[in-house]
């Protein structure tokens, strides 16, 4: 078990290095940050001075090595655009993104799983058909459109929820939270719903098809023959056995939620990392982009690790196999 975790961690270091290398190579094609920093009027001397100051005159591998060495020490340099340390900027934005993503993931799970179970059990009821139709919308409409439609209805027409921003936040040490104020909670509703919709429908459809699969198996028939109650069969036996693929997908999706929060954050001007990233792209702010991509890569790695560990909890067969294998 420990060997497994260590092995995975070592693999993740390689993954992170690859992410850093690819993103670094891509940055050469996004435009010249120096020209953007200098604005409308500058001389060639000013340009060359700034190129030297930023170390952009050095060869690619030197720049990359320097970046990796300082990144390991948690030092990501200073933002070209905002003239502030990148680590500090990201630390400021991280709470907003994490709160939004976690809220969205929570919504997707708590609504998606019961809906999936229901549509799996009562395939022909009108409510199931309704859920499935709605889920088509969630899968097919792009996030920004859903966001704008929600803003139109709930902010402009009904005027009950704010259209942008995070509301008032409360500082708890270095963490800023919107959970403790009314305006913060209200501001969270629309972005969280927008962000969760795709995941919700995905989870619902996945649970549904898995349930249909499991309900046909022999052990469910036996369970019925033994006269167990429907609740025990459906939730104790059927649902539990659908969970392995659901956990895999949900885990991967949480990484996706954090990464794809970019679109939702842009639509709602949600002051998280995704918005920071988009603004950095527009300004060729390389240090921020590099740090962001590394961080998202890191999240994916950690989440996958957690998912792998969760398998052990849900699926006893894995434990036995491993145990037997290491016993030899």
């Amino acid at each position, binding site marked *: 078990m420990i060997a497994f975790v260590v092995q995975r961690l070592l693999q993740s270091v390689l993954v992170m290095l690859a992410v850093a290398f690819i993103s670094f190579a891509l940055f050469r094609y*996004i*435009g*010249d940050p120096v*020209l*953007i*920093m*200098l*604005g*409308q*009027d*500058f*001389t060639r001397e*000013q340009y060359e*001075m*700034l190129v030297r*100051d*930023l170390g952009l005159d050095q060869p690619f591998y030197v720049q990359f090595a320097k970046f990796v060495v300082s990144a390991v020490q948690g*030092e990501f*340099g*200073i933002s*070209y*655009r*905002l*003239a*502030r*340390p990148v680590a*500090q*900027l990201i630390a400021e934005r991280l709470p907003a993104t994490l709160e939004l993503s976690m809220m969205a993931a929570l919504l997707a799970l708590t609504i998606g799983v019961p809906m999936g179970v229901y549509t799996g059990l009562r395939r022909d009821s009108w409510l199931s058909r309704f859920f499935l139709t709605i889920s088509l919308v969630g899968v097919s409409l792009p996030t*920004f459109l859903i966001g*704008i439609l929600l*803003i*139109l209805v709930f*902010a*402009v027409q009904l*005027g009950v929820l*704010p*259209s*942008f*921003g*995070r509301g*008032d936040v*409360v500082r*708890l040490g270095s963490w800023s939270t919107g959970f*403790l*104020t*009314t*305006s913060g909670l209200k501001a969270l509703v629309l972005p969280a719903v927008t962000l969760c919709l795709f995941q919700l429908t995905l989870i619902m459809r996945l649970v549904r098809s898995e349930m249909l699969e499991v309900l046909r198996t022999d052990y469910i028939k036996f369970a019925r023959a033994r006269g167990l109650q429907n609740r025990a069969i459906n939730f104790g036996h059927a649902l539990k056995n659908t969970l392995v693929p659901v956990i895999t997908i949900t885990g991967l999706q949480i990484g996706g939620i954090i990464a794809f929060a970019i679109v939702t954050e*842009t*639509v*709602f*001007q949600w*002051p998280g990392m995704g*918005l*920071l990233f*988009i*603004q950095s792209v*527009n*300004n*060729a702010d390389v240090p921020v982009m590099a740090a962001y991509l590394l961080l998202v890569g890191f999240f994916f790695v950690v989440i996958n690790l957690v998912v792998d560990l969760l398998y052990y909890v849900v699926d006893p067969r894995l434990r036995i196999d491993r145990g037997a294998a290491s016993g030899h």
Partner: protein
Amino acid sequence: MSMKRAFGTAILAGALAAALAATAEAKPFRFAVSGDANTMDPHSQNAGQVTLILRQIYEPLIQRGKKLEKIPGLATSWQAVEPTRWRFQLRRGVKFHDGSDFNADDVVFSIKRALAPTSNYAIYVDTVADVVRVDDHTVDVVTKIPDPILPDKFTSVFMMDKEWSEKNNSIRPQNTREREEMFTVRNTNGTGPYRLTTREPDVRTELARVDSWWGWQDKGLNDGNVTQMTFRPIGSDATRVAALLSGEVDFVLDPPLQDVNRLKQSLRVLEGPEVRTIFFTYDMHRDELLYSNVKGKNPFKDVRVRKAMYQAIDSNAIHTRVMRGQSIPTGTFFPPQVNGYLKSEDVRYPFNVDAAKKLLAEAGYGGGFEVTLDCPNNRYINDEQICQAVAAMWTRVGINTKLNAMPLATFFPKIQKDDSSLYLMGWGVPTYDALYSFQSLLQSRDGQPGNGIWNYGRYSFAEMDRLINIMKNELDTTKRTAAIHAALKIYREDIPHIPVHHQMIPWAMQKGVNTVHMANNQLEVKWVKLD
């Protein structure tokens, strides 16, 4: 137990913060723009969204009035005592927001700070050789050459407090080599009508009225009644409009054009021209174009080809279809607000497809040719759509135009390497004087500071250069204006650019907001009245 208590404290703190916020909200003026100011340093980044905030906090020696005319600011009067020496009399009794006095030392310090290599404001002080304190309230600015438009440039140089800057280790604008954040990036100490109370980059910036500001005495001019204001950047166009429609913000500086007509129905929209002109220009230097199928010669060196392309453009179609009426078609390259403008030179060659084809045939391109048009897609209003429309118009007369649209972060580096045969550009005039446009865009690139630094078509014409040099040095207004007008005539006849239009900038706001529309696209909150 301790966990529970911490949670309880947090809730209490939250409730308290909410209560405090409620009492502080007298009647805040909430305004939104697509992008935030990147810094609060007054000499670091010369960009509209930065000065939009800073001009509420900091003041220049000379200000702009409601019609962009020069009016006294921190200087009460100014005059050229010698051809290369301007003398400024400073306003007495002015205090910075931290309570210290404004005096000559601060002026000397601020102008020198704007001269620093890390400053982006060098264009406004490029002719300054030295700044001399005469007495506590008199300052002399010595220039390298006679500079007739120094007062115009100084309307963009903000004044800082010397002692405060020194104390906070900020005597120069941010240097990117230093890994530390400079104090002035998030802190201010100006003399202006508002002071900074909260600064959260990309989220919100809050300002509060300074009741002791000297300018409030002039009730006829500074008649605003805003006591608190919140500035919120909202990047997404649809969301920014929604926030205005739902009443969450009072004012939007840059509503998207397609929404302007709808906004007019329920809200107030002020429309006016911006001091920014959109034009096409081309490589007039190389003997063979980089991106064309014409080999061995450069068609853009022939004025008949340039005129043919000009006459192929249906400027009315661009005005009504692409810009939805939000533009002012023009035959020159700066609008009437700029000193030197001449109505009789602002005349377009008429749209005429047959004339264009005839000119091309005369020039030996009756069979047409191919060329690539480079175009930004996120810099000017509807830039890519303009290029699409014009590319089709040129193709119609035989110039097969391939459009290469790209984001500004890629576009500008490309044209700045002279790596384009034909491109679209826009040009604003922060000095409100024609020299800036002529010198940057049309003077031969001879390595002298400022000369032709945006002349990427490498236009070069001796008579034009001679007239531009007169504009630089001539203190006699009549002679200088004559030179500008002569240069405008060359511009119209020699066609170094194909002008398209001046941009219009609609501002959208709630019905209860009264303000003055400014052609520099800068809102002056000191003139905003809320009903």
